[in-house]
């Protein structure tokens, strides 16, 4: 991909990422009595960057997403949760994608689950770990389900985006 095209695409994805975060902020999901349950739509943009551009660029978008969210909606502890969740889920996506064995659906599902595991780990460090274990199963399942839905959406998007990219090259 040409550098100028890459820069434009990454800028677009970063902006879209932020819009998706804002939409989620406006439409909170039923929380199932546990904090931190959400769809994670913004991850669609991180995935798009990872599949279409590269790992470094996708990591950068992920980090910018987290910092922007913190600056606009969040608190400092919120930042710690996002960083832990964002880092773990990105690592999962990277490794699973590299293995070449999984489709975006499986990759995104695992990333969703690990995102919540990362957040739980921070919560366990900051508060009472024993109390948090109680929430672990439901948060893993919620992350898995949300990630699978995102993966399904992303598979559909990817088909079209790749067709478009090929058309341009």
């Amino acid at each position, binding site marked *: 991909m040409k550098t100028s095209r890459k820069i434009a695409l990454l800028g677009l994805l970063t902006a879209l990422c932020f819009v998706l975060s804002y939409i989620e902020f406006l439409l909170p999901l039923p*929380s199932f*009595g*546990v*904090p*931190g349950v959400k769809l994670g739509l913004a991850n669609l943009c991180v995935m798009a960057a990872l599949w279409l551009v590269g790992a470094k660029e996708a990591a950068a978008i992920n980090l910018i997403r987290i910092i922007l969210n913190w600056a606009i909606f969040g*608190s400092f*502890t919120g930042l710690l*949760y996002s960083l832990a969740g964002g880092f773990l889920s990105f690592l999962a996506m990277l490794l*699973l994608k590299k293995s070449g*064995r*999984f*489709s975006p*659906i*499986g*990759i995104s*599902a*695992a990333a969703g*689950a690990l995102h919540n595991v990362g957040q739980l780990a921070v*919560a366990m460090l*900051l*508060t*009472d*770990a*024993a*109390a*948090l*274990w*109680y*929430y*672990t*199963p*439901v948060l*893993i*399942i919620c992350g*898995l389900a949300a990630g*699978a839905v995102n993966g399904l959406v992303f598979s559909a998007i990817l088909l079209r985006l790749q067709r478009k990219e090929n058309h341009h090259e």
Partner: protein
Amino acid sequence: MKNKRLLCDLLLILAIAALAGAIFLLTRLPSGEEGEAVEIRIGGELFKVLPLDTDSSTDVGGLCTVVIENGAARVSESTCSNLLCVNHRPISRSGESIVCLPNGVTVRVSGGADFYI
């Protein structure tokens, strides 16, 4: 090729779900019994232990209020933003907990056959 990937996806998802199931069994199975007390912690530090058999209302460092009535504990008020803790149902079985992440307050039932020592 594509079917093989989807099979791998399915196995991956099932493995993670199984892990969640295992954690569920480990943490909730022993919690069938009614607990004896609740431990209230702020940022992991033990703040107070309250017996479940005595009705009470306790201010937790100005962050929230823990009420005990009819052998169950609940958070009646909180200064946090999302109020998940206030909306949580009352807890009484050992191992059950209410977590208020914004304030870092946890309320956990102890006693009975407690999984956590």
